């Protein structure tokens, strides 16, 4: 089957773009690094975590998850641009697998995440992040993050192929992801939120991911309203369930959308 090799050619195209325009990589990593530094030094002093190592230990998993969740923005904007320029029409006129272009794109965005997470992890280390769980668990944590980014990327495919302009794609993805990452345990404990909000925040896939990663990086989680419930006791399992649900819904929808996509 050509399905995989076709998708890898599209992924390669994206990596070549990065090689031809290195600024693309630079700006992909500057923003997350900036976030690490801002949160670490702006909020770090005023949030008492009660855990050894201070706020940065809790912050890093949160900011990792936020960054990979935002993968969907890059995916969406990239596809909208390809659509506007007529590249999608060109690809669709080729005898390639029906899912190659969208799979290749999500894989490429996943590959970029490896670079981004590495840069963030190193920055985190410089400012005091010290995961204590050993090599295997830490690696597993990063694998989790990459898969979550890949799953979110598929939501980006659908958005990217549904809007007509890059600016719309940028705004739409921001509106979709921003509340999701802040209405969570990523930057501040949920226990400070109004009770009804705690339920939403703690069941939010971003929170289960953050809690799961904290667990893998050797930290203890705090829960408010949902303490003792399944997601709070099993954040990793719950995250896997969420990822499967996201992919089961958005992969077929995205592939279908791609195969009907026509630019203006």
């Amino acid at each position, binding site marked *: 089957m*050509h399905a995989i090799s*076709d998708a890898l*050619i599209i992924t*390669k*195209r994206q990596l*070549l*773009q990065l090689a*031809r*325009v290195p600024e693309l990589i630079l700006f992909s990593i500057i923003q997350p690094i900036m976030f690490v530094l801002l949160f670490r030094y702006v909020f770090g002093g005023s949030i008492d975590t009660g855990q050894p190592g201070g706020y940065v230990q809790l912050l890093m998993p949160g900011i990792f998850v936020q960054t990979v969740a935002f993968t969907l923005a890059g995916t969406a904007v990239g596809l909208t641009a390809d659509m506007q*320029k*007529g*590249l999608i*029409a*060109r*690809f*669709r*006129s*080729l*005898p*390639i697998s029906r899912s*190659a272009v969208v799979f290749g794109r999500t894989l490429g965005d996943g590959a970029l995440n490896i670079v981004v997470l590495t840069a963030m992890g190193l920055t985190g280390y410089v400012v005091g992040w010290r995961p204590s769980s050993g090599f295997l668990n830490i690696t597993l944590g990063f694998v989790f993050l990459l898969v979550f980014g890949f799953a979110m990327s598929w939501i980006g495919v659908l958005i990217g192929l*549904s*809007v*007509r302009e890059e600016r719309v794609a940028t705004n739409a993805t921001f509106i979709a992801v921003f509340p999701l990452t802040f209405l969570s345990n990523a930057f501040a404990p949920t226990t400070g939120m109004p009770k009804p909000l705690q339920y939403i925040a703690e069941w939010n896939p971003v929170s289960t991911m953050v809690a799961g990663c904290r667990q893998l990086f050797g930290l203890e989680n705090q829960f408010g309203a949902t303490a003792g419930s399944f997601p709070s006791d099993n954040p990793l399992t719950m995250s896997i369930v969420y990822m499967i649900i996201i992919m089961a819904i958005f992969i077929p929808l995205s592939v279908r959308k791609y195969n009907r996509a*026509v*630019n*203006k």
Partner: protein
Amino acid sequence: MKAITAEELYKTYDKGKIKALDGLNLDVEEGTVLGVLGPNGAGKTTTVRVLATLLVPDAGRATVSGIDVIKNPQEVRKIIGLSGQYAAVDETLTGWDNLIMFGRLYHLSARAAKSRAIELLEQFSLTDSAKRPIRTYSGGMRRRLDLAASLIVKPKVLFLDEPTTGLDPRGRQDMWGVINELVKGGVTLLLTTQYLEEADQLADEIAVIDHGKVIARGTSDSLKKQVGGERLEIVVENQHMAATKEIVARISSSALNVDEGLRLISAPVTTGSKALIEAAKLLDEMGIHPLDIGLKRPSLDDVFLSLTGHLAEEKKDEDLALASKKRGR
């Protein structure tokens, strides 16, 4: 053998409010060039999209090389090439990168993709710019690279959607040269254009479309006969109007058209530049120096005027329809 057939194609946008294709019929003989001529929004792009498997029509049937485009799109994609205003290449990458990528997507081996890229770059005079990103290319170079990308597997049927729209005259001439070379190689070509001159240059036959259907079909000569061919146009000072009318009447056997306000005298001619030279000679002998003198070729507007009685309107219906369709989804 017909390389392309389209029977009674219908496509509406915006819940039937806008008819992009309204019972379009078309066929192209193998190894020939059909020019599809029409204004924006006439249905040219929609036609190409249906034939190139990008769009499924609401009703009707279409084949390319005998293969049904609706039932068997993947087979059709193996034998067609598509290039034009809406099918593009990756502008961030170099010309070389693009040709290799498309070659690999056509399932050529790495080595075959490379040698084909070298061949095509040579053929389209792009070898020197191969390692530059496409966004640094001129409009004409970009179109040539785009065309090259659609020729990687030597398609049996080629679709060119407005191949020269937006190019300067020089770029247009180059592109015509390139396309004429291709056609000599025996490919079946369907090209859409807004310019009668372009269809005239490149096509064996022309189909004029308006409101989603073919309203006239024929060779460029037969269409021109309907339109009236070239016109001789002379603008002179007021005091020379009478004498010039006599001269033009001697050259053209048809009725003169005189616009007193513009001081313009025009008439259909059949002998082309010979008529122009003769007119210039006679005017010179009389000591008349025209303010303007020239041959005017019939334009798309002239064709439409004579075929439909109305001018070719710029319609944005198709675009609007697609736009609202997208929002609806």
